[in-house]
C-alpha cells in the first residue's frame, strides 16, 4: 500500500450522459503541492467537488491516508468531509462571509472544536472557564494566521470590505483554520496581480513546508503552477493525459497539444 496522502482510484463522475471525469487515478503527497491543470471544462473543479463531498462520485474511490487510518472520502457527505476527514477547500469565486468580520470568518472555521467546548451551547451560556479558555485559544490561532497574511490590523472589519487579493488569502487561511490534512485550492491566483501572486506562492510554500499539509491546486496561472508545484496532473475531457514534474509537463507534447491543438 502506498503511503501517499491521497489516493484517487478510477474516479468517474457522470451527469446523465455526460462523462465529466472518466476513470481518473492520481495521488497527492503529504507536504507536496500537486497541481491539476487542463483547459476549461476539463473537469478539474468536478474532481474537487467529488473530493470534498459536494458531488457523489458515480464510481471509484478516494482514500485519505492519515497516520493510522485510511478513510474513503466517498463515504462522507458534504460537511463531514471537512469535519471528520479534515479536507478543506476554497472556491473559484470567493466564498467568504462578507458581512461578518475577518476574525469571525476564522472563528466559524473553528466551529466544531468550539461547539464541543461550549458543551453544545449550554456551558457557553454560563461562560464556563473551559469554554472561555478554548475560545481564547481559537482567537490566538486566528491571530497567528492573520499575522502571516498581514491582515491583523483589519481583523475587526467586514470581510467583504477587503481588497480582492486579501479576500483570496483570507479564504485560504480560513480553510487552514480547520486544521486540515489536505487543502484543496480552486484557482487561488485568479484575478491577482503579479505582486499578489508572488505573495500567494510564499503563503502556499509556507503551508506546505511548515504545516506539512498536502495541497491540491487547480490553477490556470502557469507562473504559479510552474514555480511551486512538485507534481502536475493534466486533465482533458475528464481524462488524465499526463502527469509528472512541472518541467516535464512544460515540455510534454500531449500537454502542448491539449492546450494549443495539433499542427495540421
Amino acid at each position, binding site marked *: 500500500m502506498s503511503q501517499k496522502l491521497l489516493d484517487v482510484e478510477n474516479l468517474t463522475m457522470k451527469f446523465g450522459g455526460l462523462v465529466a471525469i472518466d476513470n481518473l487515478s492520481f495521488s497527492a503527497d503529504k507536504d507536496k503541492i500537486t497541481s491539476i491543470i487542463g483547459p476549461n471544462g476539463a473537469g478539474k473543479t468536478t474532481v474537487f467537488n467529488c473530493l470534498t463531498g459536494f458531488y457523489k462520485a458515480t464510481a471509484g474511490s478516494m482514500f485519505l491516508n492519515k497516520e493510522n487510518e485510511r478513510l474513503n472520502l466517498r463515504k462522507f457527505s458534504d*460537511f463531514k468531509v471537512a469535519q*471528520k476527514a479534515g479536507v478543506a477547500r476554497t*472556491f473559484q469565486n470567493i*466564498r467568504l*462571509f462578507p458581512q461578518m468580520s475577518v476574525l469571525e470568518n476564522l472563528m*466559524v472555521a473553528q466551529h466544531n472544536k468550539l461547539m464541543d467546548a*461550549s458543551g453544545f*451551547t449550554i456551558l457557553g451560556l454560563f461562560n464556563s472557564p473551559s469554554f472561555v479558555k478554548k*475560545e481564547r485559544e481559537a482567537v490566538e490561532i486566528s491571530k497567528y494566521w*492573520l499575522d502571516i497574511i498581514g491582515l491583523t490590523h483589519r481583523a475587526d472589519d467586514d470581510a467583504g470590505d477587503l481588497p480582492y487579493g486579501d479576500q483570496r488569502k483570507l479564504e485560504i487561511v480560513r480553510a487552514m483554520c480547520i486544521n486540515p490534512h489536505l487543502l484543496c485550492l480552486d484557482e487561488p491566483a485568479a484575478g491577482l496581480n503579479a505582486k499578489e501572486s508572488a505573495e500567494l506562492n510564499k503563503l502556499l510554500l509556507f503551508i506546505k513546508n511548515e504545516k506539512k499539509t498536502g495541497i491540491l491546486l487547480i490553477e490556470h496561472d502557469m507562473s504559479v503552477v510552474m514555480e511551486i508545484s512538485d507534481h502536475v496532473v493534466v486533465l482533458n475531457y475528464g481524462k488524465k493525459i499526463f502527469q509528472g514534474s512541472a518541467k516535464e509537463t512544460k515540455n510534454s507534447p500531449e500537454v502542448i497539444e491539449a492546450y494549443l491543438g495539433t499542427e495540421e
Partner: protein
Amino acid sequence: MEKKFFQTSIKDSLFTGLIALALFGPIVGLRTVAKNEVLEVHPKWLIVLIIVIVCAVGRFLTNLYVYNRDQKTGIQSSIGKSISNFLDTKGYQIALTAIIFSVIFPFLPFTDRYLMDIAIMMLTYIMLGWGLNIVIGLAGLLDLGYVAFYAVGAYSYALFAIHFGWSFWICLPIAGIFAAMFGVLLGFPVLRLRGDYLAIVTLAFGEMIRILLLNWYQLTKGPDGLTGIPRPSFFGLPFKSFPDEGEQTFHTFFGVEYDPMQRIIFLYYLILVLALITNLFTIKIRRLPIGRAWEALREDEIACKSLGVNPRNTKLTAFAIGAMFGGFAGSFFATRQAFISPESFTFIESAIIVAIVVLGGMGSQTGVVLATVFLIGLIEVFRDFESYRMIAFGGAMVLIMIFRPRGILATRKPTITLEKSSSK
C-alpha cells in the same frame, strides 16, 4: 437650466394629474346609488377635480423642493441624515433609555389602564420580534409562519393549565418545549429550502396549525376557543377582590387596598422580564459558536459546509430556539387574555412580526423595539379611524423603506473583536 427644469416639472405634474384622474375618476367620481331598486350613477366631478388638482400641485411642489438636486439641503438630506446618524451611533444609549423608561413606566403620572394595555401588547410583539429575529435576522431563514409557534405555546399553556391545574411557572417551560418541538417539526422538511421556497412552506405551516386548531374540536373546542384559562398568580398569591375563606391574596398578604391595576402591573412586569430574558439570551448566544454559525449560514451555506459546519443541526436549533420564545410569548398571551381562539393566530400576525423584524433592521435587537413602537404605536394612534389605520401601517412601512432601506438600525457589530479579546 433653471427654465428647463421648471418645464419638466410642469409636464410631470400634469402627467400626475392625468393619472389621478384615471384612478379617482371612476372610483370617486362615479358614485352608484341604489334608488327604487334601480342603480343610479351620481357623478361627483367636483371632488375628483379637487383631488386631481391636489395631486398635480403636490407633485409640482415636491419636484421643486424635495427632488430638486440643486437644493440638496432639503428635508430628506438634513433631517433624515441627522436621524440616521443618531440611530447609527447611539444604538446602545437608545437601548438603555428604553429599558429604564419601561421599568418606571407603570408609575408615571400619565399612565392609565389604556396605556398599560398598549404597553403590554407592544412588549408581546417585541418579544415575538426578538424570537423571530433569531430565525430571520441571524439564521436568515425567512419564516412566514411564526404565529404557529405563538399558537402552540398559547394552546399548550391553556390546555395544561385548564386540565391539570398547573401553575403558570410550570406551564411556561412546557409550552416553550412544545413550541420548540413544533419548530423542529417544521425545520426537518424545509432543511433544503431557502429564500422564497422556504417562505411559502412556512406560510403553509402557519395556516396548517391554525386550521388544525379550528377543526380538532375535542381538544381545542375549535372556533369556540378555550375559556377560563387561569390567571397568573403572584408566586401563589392570586389577584382577587374577594378572597375565599382563609385564602391569602396579593392585597391581603401585602396589606394594601385591592386595585384591579395590581394585576395589570404584574402582567406588565411579567412580559417585560420575559422579553428581556429573550433579549439577553439572544445577545449572549450570538457570541457563542452556534450564533456565529447561524450568521455564517445566512451569509453562505456552501462555505459553511466546506468548513465542516453541520447545516442541519444549525438550522434546526435556530428554528427550535426561535419557536421556543414564540411559545413563551404565546403562554403569556393565553394567561393575559384568559380566552384564546384560532382567530388570534391568523397570517396577519405573522406578517406584522416579520415586518417588525425586517423594518427594525435584520438582526438588530434595538431595531425590533423601535419598529414595534413605530408600527404598533401608529396602529393604536389611528384606532379611531378604523380601517384607515392599515393605511397608516402601510405608510409607516413605506417611510421606513425610503429613509432606512436596510431597516431602522442596520449596523451590525462583530460578535468578537481582536482588541477586546487580546486585552482581556
